Every structure is written in structure tokens, then in C-alpha cells.
């Protein structure tokens, strides 16, 4: 019988932090692996498109310092997935820089493996022409223009590239964009543990203490993989894993709780059993892995659509509030008319909090009836920052002094919380790729390089 394989998941997101006491409690259980996921598409397209991290550098350095020191001391690997948040080259470089700084600061020496997840546009166009790329419903079909316009295109790696990196016996692995469970499942799968259980355990561990009650994104979680099941246990005495909390987590952020799709296949959880092992730990069994042919990986890309400027204001005047739609429409027309000779292409929007600012078209009651104040965010997106600044500024000043019918407050229509009132937010991105690509070798697109630190 195989020795149980033990995994310490540091936090739901690298940089979200964790109590040192929880981490040390995990280390005292002699894990074989320390891992943390560092990425998500949840914060939107900007971070992938701009090559920026959505987590804070100081916070990431803090977490990594604790993890790397402990891993080197215990001689176990530390694996980070989707380094830098979106896992493209600038994100991986950003995270590598932090790791090198930690090594210098603490006089540490180790073997570092880096796995890239970027795709050349020329390759993607060839793959598209060869019919290897398909839309992931309800995303639109991919066109060459979307590839050309993207600043960064990555794919989520499965366990195979990480296993290839592990073959080189590194101490620390920084993986570019990775399917979240891969970083937890790669080593046990390499050692011969059940693939379905390893991936299902990884799927839960990637969110660390979110699967406990009370849940937290900034606390550790411990997983033990057996031949026929796995057990989850929190490391903080204030938390417990219950069958309800673990099963509930299985629902989180996915469309079907029974079928979890990933690189090369899907997990079928229809026959899963969740059993309360102790008061605070849960045992899970019955997960099945259904491989797919061909093996597909998920591509993610983002492209710039211009520059954005926003202005935040409020309105308290009931006459103004009751006529807000007509007023903003009239202001939009005034803006268009004023700059019509410039032939600019821009997007001007007044997002009205108090009406449908949160839910947009999904809002069942898009009315200002009975509302005593409104929040108004004026947003201009245009081809250059100067154009966006101009449109936002002009819309703001026009709205401020617009003489709507029945107006009593002739000194101004808006309450601004800030001076300056307008905020230039820089380049703006949208997702351009969210597609599946068939690959012959699941490790090939994700090259591994080693570095002696």
C-alpha cells in the first residue's frame, strides 16, 4: 500500500496571505508538497492584456518567503500556478523577480523551474487554419483578427508540463497559466496516485480554506491523498471542514457541479461520497476521470480597445433624479454634436447607481421611483487617452450645468466627492480568446527552463 501523499495549500491565492500558525501546523504534518494557485480570470481582461498582476507585490513576496524557506528546509517542492495572476510572460517574469529577490535577501540557493504558457500568434493562426481551435460555448468563433489584436495569449496547462519540470528535481516551480488543480495533482500523479482523486483534491485545495466553515481565502488547508480517497482538514482551530462546506465548494465558480472540465478530460463527480471523518475533516471518494480525445487546452487572450476615463458623481435633487434618463440622453447628444467634426469613435456611458448600475439589463426594477439619491459614473472609452479625457470632461461639465425642464437648482446638478473629478484609467482591454485547442502532446506547448539560484 502506498504511503498517503500529503499536500499543504498555503492560500486561495498567492498574496492573499495566511496566518503563520496555520502554515506551521501544516508543516508539522510533514507534507510532501507546498503549493498555491496565483491566478484567475475573475478580475477581468485588464490584467492579462496589460501584463500586470492583480495581487500586490509586497503581499506575494511575504507569502512566497514563508513558503520557500519552509519548503527548502523540509526538502519538498514548492509549486506556484498561474504565476503573476494571468500567467503570461510579464506575469511569470514579475513572480520570478520576486523569487530571486527572496533568494538574495535570505541567502538561499536552490533550483528553480520556470514553465511558460505563452503562445506565438503565428502558431495560433496555423492551428486555427488546421481546424484545431474551437469556440467554448457561449464564446464566439475565433477569427484571425482577434489573434492579431491580442497583447497576450496563454493556455491553461494540465499536469504534464509540471511533471516534466518535476523530472528535473527543482526545489521551486513557477508555472505560467495553469489549470488550478494541476499544481497540486502533478506530483502525486507522477508518483502513481489515482489521477481522478489527485485532480479532485487539487480542485478543492486550490481555494484553500474557502472549503471550510467559516470559509477564508487567506488561510491554509491540508489534503491527504490515499489510494481510494482523500481527506481535507483545516489547520486553524477556528475552522472545520464539513460535508456541506466541502460539497458546497464543489459548486463554486463552475457551471456544472458533477462534471468539471479541464485539460485533457473531465472529472465526473456523480458517484462521489462526502463523509465526515472527524469533527473537522472530510473524506471524499468516488471521483472519476474521463479522458477526452483529442486532448484540449483552454486558450485565454485579451486585446486593447482603447483608453478609459471615468468621473464619479452623485445626485440628490428629486427633480433631477426623476428625469435622469432624459438628461443623460440629452447630454450624450450634446457631446456628439460638439465634437462631430473630429469623427472620433468613442463609447460614452452614464452608469446610474440607484437605478440599474449593478445589474444592467438583468435588473428587474430599473426604476428610480422612491430613490432619494443616485450614484453616477460617467465613463468615456476612446482611441487615445486624450480623446477619452476630452469626452469624459465635456460630458461631466455638460451634465453639471445641463438645464433640464423643471430645474430649480441652477447652480449645479452633481455632487463630486473628489477633486480632480476625472480619473484617467489608461489602456482598456477585453477578452479576445476563450477557446479550446487540440494538442498532440500536452507538455509540448509549455516549455520548461531551469535556473540555479
Amino acid at each position, binding site marked *: 500500500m502506498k504511503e498517503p501523499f500529503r499536500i499543504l495549500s498555503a492560500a486561495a491565492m498567492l498574496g492573499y496571505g495566511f496566518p503563520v500558525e496555520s502554515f506551521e501546523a501544516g508543516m508539522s504534518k510533514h507534507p510532501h508538497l507546498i503549493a498555491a494557485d496565483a491566478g484567475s480570470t475573475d478580475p477581468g481582461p485588464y490584467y492579462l492584456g496589460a501584463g500586470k498582476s492583480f495581487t500586490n507585490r509586497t503581499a506575494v513576496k511575504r507569502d512566497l518567503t514563508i513558503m520557500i524557506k519552509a519548503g527548502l528546509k523540509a526538502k519538498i517542492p514548492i509549486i506556484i500556478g498561474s504565476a503573476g495572476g494571468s500567467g503570461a510572460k510579464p506575469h511569470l517574469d514579475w513572480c520570478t523577480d520576486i523569487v530571486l529577490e527572496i533568494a538574495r535577501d535570505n541567502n538561499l540557493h536552490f533550483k528553480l523551474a520556470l514553465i511558460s504558457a505563452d503562445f506565438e500568434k503565428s502558431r495560433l493562426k496555423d492551428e486555427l487554419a488546421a481546424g484545431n481551435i474551437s469556440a467554448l460555448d457561449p464564446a464566439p468563433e475565433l477569427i484571425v483578427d482577434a489573434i492579431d489584436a491580442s497583447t497576450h495569449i496563454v493556455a491553461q496547462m494540465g499536469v504534464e508540463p509540471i511533471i516534466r519540470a518535476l523530472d528535473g528535481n527543482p526545489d521551486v516551480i513557477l508555472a505560467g497559466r495553469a489549470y488550478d488543480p494541476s499544481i497540486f495533482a502533478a506530483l502525486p500523479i507522477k508518483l502513481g496516485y489515482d489521477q481522478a482523486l489527485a485532480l479532485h483534491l487539487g480542485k478543492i485545495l486550490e481555494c484553500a480554506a474557502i472549503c471550510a466553515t467559516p470559509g477564508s481565502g487567506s488561510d491554509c488547508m491540508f489534503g491527504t491523498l490515499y489510494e481510494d480517497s482523500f481527506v481535507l482538514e483545516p489547520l486553524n482551530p477556528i475552522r472545520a471542514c464539513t460535508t456541506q462546506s466541502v*460539497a458546497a465548494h464543489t459548486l463554486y465558480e463552475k457551471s456544472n457541479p458533477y462534471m468539471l472540465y479541464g485539460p485533457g478530460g473531465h472529472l465526473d463527480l456523480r458517484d462521489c461520497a462526502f463523509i465526515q471523518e472527524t469533527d473537522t475533516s472530510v473524506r471524499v471518494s468516488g471521483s472519476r476521470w474521463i479522458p477526452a480525445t483529442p486532448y484540449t487546452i483552454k486558450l485565454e487572450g485579451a486585446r486593447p480597445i482603447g483608453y478609459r476615463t471615468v468621473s464619479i458623481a452623485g445626485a440628490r435633487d428629486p427633480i433631477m433624479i426623476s428625469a435622469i434618463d432624459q438628461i443623460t440622453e440629452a447630454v450624450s447628444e450634446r457631446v456628439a454634436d460638439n465634437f462631430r467634426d473630429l469623427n472620433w469613435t468613442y463609447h460614452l456611458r452614464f452608469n446610474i447607481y440607484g437605478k440599474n448600475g449593478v445589474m444592467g439589463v438583468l435588473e428587474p426594477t430599473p426604476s428610480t421611483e422612491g430613490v432619494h439619491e443616485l450614484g453616477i459614473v460617467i465613463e468615456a472609452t476612446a482611441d487615445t487617452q486624450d480623446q477619452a479625457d476630452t469626452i469624459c470632461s465635456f460630458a461631466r461639465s455638460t451634465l453639471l450645468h445641463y438645464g433640464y425642464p423643471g430645474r430649480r437648482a441652477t447652480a449645479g446638478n452633481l455632487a463630486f466627492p473628489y477633486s480632480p473629478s476625472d480619473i484617467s484609467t489608461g489602456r482598456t482591454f477585453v477578452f479576445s480568446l476563450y477557446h479550446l485547442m487540440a494538442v498532440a502532446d500536452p507538455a509540448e506547448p509549455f516549455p520548461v527552463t531551469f535556473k540555479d539560484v
Partner: protein
Amino acid sequence: MRIKLIDITDVIRSKNAGPYELTFDIMFKSLDWFEKVVAADAINTDTVCRLFQLQPDDVLNIIPFKPAKAIKITIKRPLCSGDLGETDVYGAQQHAPLLSLELNLSV
């Protein structure tokens, strides 16, 4: 029997499931309530369309998940997350209409 969803649940939440989908989790206080609601088919495509001004094609699935005493609803996002016109990048505040939903449980 008419009953408010909020009175028989512990969790009602929404979140993106990838940038093109929005998913809602409704977790019931007890297995009994979960089973009653599922048996009565009290949360169906029609209910979801009515709550969120959707067409039936926009509702991708409604799945009861017994291990969590939960019903999961997944719909098409009105926009790909972060597109021009976005109001909720994470999709975490789209659940509110479910809080005032009343169910008819007379089977």
C-alpha cells in the same frame, strides 16, 4: 403552499463561471426543503427568465446537487466579463432578485 426562498436557504450567491457564464448557487437549510423544491420543480427555466428578463436559450442549465442540498443555475452573461457596458466584472452581485423569490410548493 407559498414560501419565500430566503426563508428556506442558507446561501444564495452569484459568480462568474468563466467570462461568458454567470452561475447562481442556492443552498437549502435542510435536505427536506431541497427535496421539496426539486420535486415541485419550483425553480425552473421560466422562473429564471422571469427574474432576470431572459429568453429560455439564455438559461444554460438548472442542476440539483444533493451533496450540498443545492440548486445551481447557470445563465449566459449578458456581456463577456469586462466588455464595454460591464457593471459587475466578478458577477458577485447578480443574485439579489432570488432573495425576494416566492415559491409555490403545492405539488
